[in-house]
């Protein structure tokens, strides 16, 4: 019924982390990335939260896409439906985590609600729709992209920690400027992976 692209699950997972990292290759989720990566601990919390949310919403949106949107022929409403699904999943995740693990809830804190407007979540879902993944591929792609985002923010947070320690940065570049240049170098490093696995 679905002509899914012929991609192995493991290579899809690795590709979504390394070669087509949502952040470094597709620029998704840069805003919260820059503001949160100042702090190592917050980066950890946000990374976990984003990974969970992208993985779960990718699965839910796949089901919604194939069993609600397509049978009804309302593709033109898909943006709105996806946004509502994301907001709903975030809200539910917040309640579930609060109920079963208050410690984790405290750690994630304000990051969960913020994720609703994180471009990475909607971006991954739209990529999933355009590339016509089947269900296992969608889930793997979702978690892989989340993990890639998590990896990228941890790397950047570590680099920024070292950067803040020495003061050699020109005044005009301090803050966002030098962070963007750092991200650029990270993106160049990740481009180096691109010969390894090619998944569109």
């Amino acid at each position, binding site marked *: 019924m679905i002509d899914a692209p012929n991609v192995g699950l493991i290579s899809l997972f690795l590709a979504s982390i390394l070669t087509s990292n949502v952040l*470094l*290759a*597709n*620029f*998704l*989720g*840069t*805003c919260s990335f*820059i503001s949160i990566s100042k702090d190592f601990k917050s980066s950890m919390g946000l990374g976990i939260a984003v990974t969970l949310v992208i993985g779960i919403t990718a699965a839910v949106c796949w089901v919604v896409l194939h069993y609600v949107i397509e049978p009804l022929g309302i593709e*033109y*409403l898909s*943006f*709105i439906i996806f*946004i*509502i699904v994301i*907001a709903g999943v975030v809200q539910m995740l917040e309640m579930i985590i609060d109920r079963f693990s208050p410690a984790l809830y405290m750690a994630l804190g304000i990051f969960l609600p913020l994720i*609703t*407007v*994180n*471009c990475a*979540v*909607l*971006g991954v879902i*739209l*990529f999933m*729709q*355009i590339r016509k993944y089947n269900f296992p591929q969608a889930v793997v792609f979702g978690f892989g992209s989340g993990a890639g985002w998590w990896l990228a923010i941890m790397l950047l947070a570590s680099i920024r920690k070292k950067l803040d320690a020495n003061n050699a940065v*020109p*005044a*005009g*570049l301090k803050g*966002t*400027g*030098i962070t*963007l*240049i750092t*991200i*650029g*170098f990270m*993106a*160049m490093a990740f*481009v180096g992976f691109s010969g390894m696995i090619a998944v569109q």
Partner: protein
Amino acid sequence: MSDTEKMRAPLKVSPAAKVMRDGLWYNNPIFVQVLGICSTLAVTNNLRNTLIMVLGVSFATSMGSLTLSALRELIPRKVRMIVQVLVLSFYVIIIDIVLRAYQPAISKQLGPYVGLIITNCILMGRAEAFAASNSPGLAFLDGLANGFGYGWVLLVIAAIREFFGFGSLFGFKVVGEGFVPWTIMVMAPSAFFLVAIALWIANNYKAKVEAASKRAAPGAPAGSSPGPGSSAAGAAPSAPGAPAHQKG
């Protein structure tokens, strides 16, 4: 000096003109607010696609601000965020449908990035920061100004990337046969570098203007002593760190 005049001018202009000025320069979404670099950077290796995205973002921001400002008394506080997202996605859907109908090739190239205008932080940012407390007309202008303020920076970046990456502008070849394209300009890292450089130039310019206005503000007699007519040039050496990177 014109720099100092520019700093003082906003005090005596109409609200509409002030809004336009803020969006385009003084409170530019990229230079000052550092918002919305997420989704649209991805298409900046091509001028034509960037122009379409910029127009889309400006349309969604201005119309979204207009609608949300008109509705601001009616929206309950608790559901404000979700209402904002829904109104904004309504306009993005319009853009998507229009593009699909009239420019199917571009729509395909842009792929998910049209839909991602919804989560562009500028839209939510302006809805929250401006439209929630201003009249619809002003909110519309503010959205437009922010869209264009964001747009001109992106267009400059796109022009640089397309010129060096493909040797063309708007798809027309502008350099000779011997030109070797810079592959890096087509790929993601260059966009980050170029935004950083743009930010650097803007910050340096701002620091210079500030230093100049500080010199001019305490009293005109003190400012005139180093030499007539060169207050900006005279101020630069006194500003700490400025001479090291005067390229901007």
